[in-house]
């Protein structure tokens, strides 16, 4: 049973807009590599740290979104984050999905 409160932290890279996911104190390019926070305090702590780091001007708009894990694979709950993690659903040749992610 997936934990309904599991969350991942995301942002966009400042210089080119690329979607980023939080892993430890840094960022990765794919949802598969992202840290999943299974409790709210951990998620909030990650968001707080990322918010504090905005002054470094490396990324913008950090926020948390819901995920569920099935067989060890992370799936966003909402369509918006599914598309954001993959790329446009109408252009399978573009976005992260095209990079074999």
């Amino acid at each position: 049973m997936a934990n309904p409160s599991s969350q991942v932290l995301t942002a966009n890279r400042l210089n080119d807009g690329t979607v980023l996911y939080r892993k430890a104190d840094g960022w990765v390019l794919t949802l598969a590599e992202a840290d999943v926070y299974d409790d709210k305090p951990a998620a909030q702590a990650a968001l707080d740290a990322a918010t504090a780091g905005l002054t470094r001007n490396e990324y913008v708009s950090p926020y948390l979104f819901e995920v569920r894990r099935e067989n060890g694979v992370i799936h966003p709950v909402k369509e918006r984050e599914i598309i954001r993690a993959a790329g446009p659903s109408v252009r399978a040749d573009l976005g992260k999905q095209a990079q074999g992610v």
Partner: protein
Amino acid sequence: MAEPNMYRYDEFDAQFVAERTAQFRTQVERRLKGELNEDQFKPLRLMNGLYLQLHAYMLRVAVPYGTLSSAQMRKLAHIARVYDKGYGHFTTRQNIQYNWPALVDVPDILEELASVEMHAIQTSGNCIRNVTADHFAGAALDEIEDPRPLAEVIRQWSSLHPEFVFLPRKFKIAVSGAPNDRAALAYHDMAIEIVKNDQGRVGYKVLVGGGMGRTPYIAQVLGDFVEKEDILAFLEAAMRIYNQQGRRDNMYKARIKILTNALGIEEMRRLTGIEFAEIKKAGTLQLPKEELDRITAYFAAPAFETLEDAMPSGDAAFEAWKKTNVHKHRQPGYAIATISLKPIGGVPGDASADQMDAVAAIMDRYSLGEIRVSHEQNLVLPHVRQKDLPAIHAALAGFDLATPNAGLITDIIACPGLDYCDLANARSIPIAQDIAKTFADLDRQHDIGELKIKISGCINACGHHHAGHIGILGVDKKGVEFYQLLLGGSGAEDASIGQIMGPGFTEHEIAGAVERVVNLYLAKREKGERFLDTYRRMGMEPFKNVAYGEELYAVHQG
């Protein structure tokens, strides 16, 4: 390369755009260095058309009043190839959007644009946006005057207007010179219709307070007949009232449509009249005839050949294209040709760099180097010889640009939706694709006739769903996409706001619901009725009964 008759920058325009580009370059540098935080940078980048969307930044480039030269089209293709992922998206506001530019590249893109007299100034933000116009301007049979000279005058007046770059909300202006409204005037914050008064003098009818979004309104008349020389003073007066009194406490109530309806159109007219008199007294905004004439001269009719009307015939594919995509031109022997950017199953409004280059070559060879971007997300060759139409059709077909569906049910307007847009609640493009595939049969499309489907992925209505004969609005229900159906909208001279039918449909149900609605129209229409006419005669109820399922329909008929 053909040089079309359109506005050309002089040294002042060129310097203005160059300096604005340099200014934006420093703004980007300040952002990267942290001298501006995101909250401060956002309105500045938006004023230059730069958004941060789902996957990347998005740059919106202005195509003022929809007119492009072939050199500009080639530059748009070049930018798509070099700085983006090989394509661009033509929008309902006669702009083109690039979906993948890097922030650090945008100043270079703007320099490329400036080299062909283009820019992204005020394509977003709470300011006066790209001025739009009838895409048949200068070619239409029903035109009183070409609306583009006035649109250019307004473009210049509104560019970095010091009072109006931090308005309560965005501000959209459209201009049309013909009684048949192809510019959706009634849905603009302000709109100008070129009219003739009783004495035969040409002037401007000014509308205010139209708009879509959360609270759709049809525009009302602010000025019945504004003299040409007074038009900027009149617009500035209304803008000033709006900047001073428009709401700033709630972004959903900040457009001028809300102010107009709160004050009432009479009060809006009175306040505008007082301010107008003040501005006129100062005299500095009067538009001298010489200046309007000077700008009008740029848009002079091309040197048409003396030809007879003689529409060529061809194979079935050509005939089908001719029937819907070719329109009557004011000049004998000439025609207007619509290039559909709506291939069945494609992305409405998208064009690849190769397609743009192909179009540029066709423009040079057949259309005096000129093209228009329409608010219906198509391209329009404004001045082609009738005898060239078969060759044009063949050239277009080679690049998948000859879809014969202009004005038909598969000529669907759709915003980028949740596939790209940060504001969207639901996807638009796959719905457009589903519906287009459902009605792919050409005979069936022709049988259905004129039917405008318009799809928006959120309440902001970039896909003009309120103005669709059939409108579709994507909504989010706990992270799942649902689609509301609206019927009876129109963005033309018979403007009306579509009515919501009822509960939404899933993404898998919506195309079927549209099909049932259309089938009812086919069964019930009277001679000569478009879908919209039948809907207006019959009302929502019978359509609602069929939309939710065949069984419900049977019950209703029984």
